[in-house]
């Protein structure tokens, strides 16, 4: 069993470098990517505000996962789900901040872009 456990380890090079996220070797699509984006967003989103995490292009299944990432990684903020159990909530307009996973949308949301990363953007939204 010890030999089997050894064969399950990642390659030596990966063992010698600290992972960027706790999900770097997780087979689930997007876990490490969304972790990185939401962790970076946590550095520019202050406590006490409301946040919604959305996908570009829009995808209710991805937004369900992003909501859970945001709940975990953005403590002390009010997380407004854009989708819940893969059903859109249409509540994201109520949020003070948007985290957009994926490319910047063709028509930018109203407000100011406060963070840009290869994985997505963070927007501070202004009142209508």
């Amino acid at each position, binding site marked *: 069993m010890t030999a089997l456990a*050894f064969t399950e380890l990642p390659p030596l090079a990966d063992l010698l470098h600290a*992972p960027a996220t706790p999900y770097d070797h997780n087979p689930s699509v997007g876990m490490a990517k969304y972790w990185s984006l939401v962790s970076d967003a946590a550095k520019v989103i202050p406590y006490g505000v409301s946040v919604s995490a959305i996908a570009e292009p829009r995808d209710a299944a991805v937004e369900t996962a992003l909501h859970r990432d945001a*709940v*975990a990684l953005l403590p*002390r903020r009010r997380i407004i789900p854009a989708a819940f159990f893969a059903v859109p909530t249409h509540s994201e307009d109520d949020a003070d901040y948007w985290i957009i996973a994926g490319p910047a949308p063709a028509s930018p949301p109203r407000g100011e872009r406060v963070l840009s990363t290869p994985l997505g953007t963070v927007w501070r939204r202004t009142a209508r």
Partner: protein
Amino acid sequence: MKSGYLWLASLVACPLSAWPLLLHRSYRRFSLPCRIGLAFASGGVLLSTWMTLFALAGILWQPIVLLAVSALTAFLLRFLLRKQDSAAPERTRPGLPAAMAAAISTLAVLIAVAATTSAAATSPDLLYFWGPKAQAFAFARTFDLAFLRDYYMQYVHVSYPPLVTNLSALASMIAGKFAWGAATLTFPLCLGALALSLPSVLRGIDARPSGVFASTFLVATFGFLGNNLDVAGNGEPWLWIYETLAAALLVGPFAATAAGQLLAGLLIAGAATAKVEALPFALAVAALFLFLRRREIEIGPAAAFLLLPTAISLGAWLAFGATHRLFAFYEQYGSFFDIRWQDLGDDLGNVGKAIWSAGWALPWLLPLAALLAARKRSRLALLPVLVSVVLAAFFVFTYLHQSDPAQWISWSAGRVFSPIVAFLAVAAAISGR
């Protein structure tokens, strides 16, 4: 990074809180490393129980107060023990088999550390419910009612028992934040505590090398399964330590004493409050112990020692849920009588596939083969064997309530069936006497 170290180091509160009990002469039959491992496990139960009772009483958590009342409880529990429970300290002769076993166990724990620190073993459930709940509880310094009542928090399994989230919240309060990387390291930490304690517990039932190798097999197997099934940061490592040690204690001679029963009762409570599926374990293992060993024990006190810790710890959690109108009991997977018997073949096939994919089912097949090949059959081996049967039946029964549970089975069956590995290994060890 520093908060991560502090988060992990704060779990030393577990052994510290139970140490006054484990210092009692009754437990000197075990080696010092064993008593440290047992104190880690039983201290976690004391701390978690007090956290739940504090929340029920509306008292905010303060780590130093929790440590003090838990240690005081451990001290007071000593008065329930009798002098005749005492036994001579374990005298071990560290021969070549014991040295080999210790070396393999150490290697298995180091591999688990490598798997965890390289992010290969992290559980998705850490992100999806264990972590957010613990984090919210730590900020609130109690069970966060606003969080638990939020409609959009249903996915965190509101009614799930509290031990893992309590201990994580305690560590987060001490460290000042929830440390995600440190939380994943609870997998090798629990594995290490099991490696420290299990050899001495199993030597109590079998002084020959087979007892030592059963312990090493379990540490190596859980090290493999932990990475294969991605359990770092979730409840399985805690369940493994509690269920394995409880089963091993209950088939040994020490379980005939009040001290053995009290310790087993604390471990059973740890299992029952670590994961939902451990409640049938708690009921089955206690009932089978009382029946199979009825001639050696006083039924009333033994039942109290075994079940009162679970009744208090889990009862406090259920009372918290009921008094705050959060839940009356665990969430159900469909209506109890709505059983899809027509899916039994498919579901069993899917369970088989899930278990096969975890190392060709070797973790289950090897101890089963050792048990079947044993020349002598101990009547007490029935205890872990029947617990395995009860749990397997319960898991399949649960799956039979879901339409098309193939995907659910594929990601959960390996984990939920994993404690059965320990029960089969304990049965094999006791049969090999």
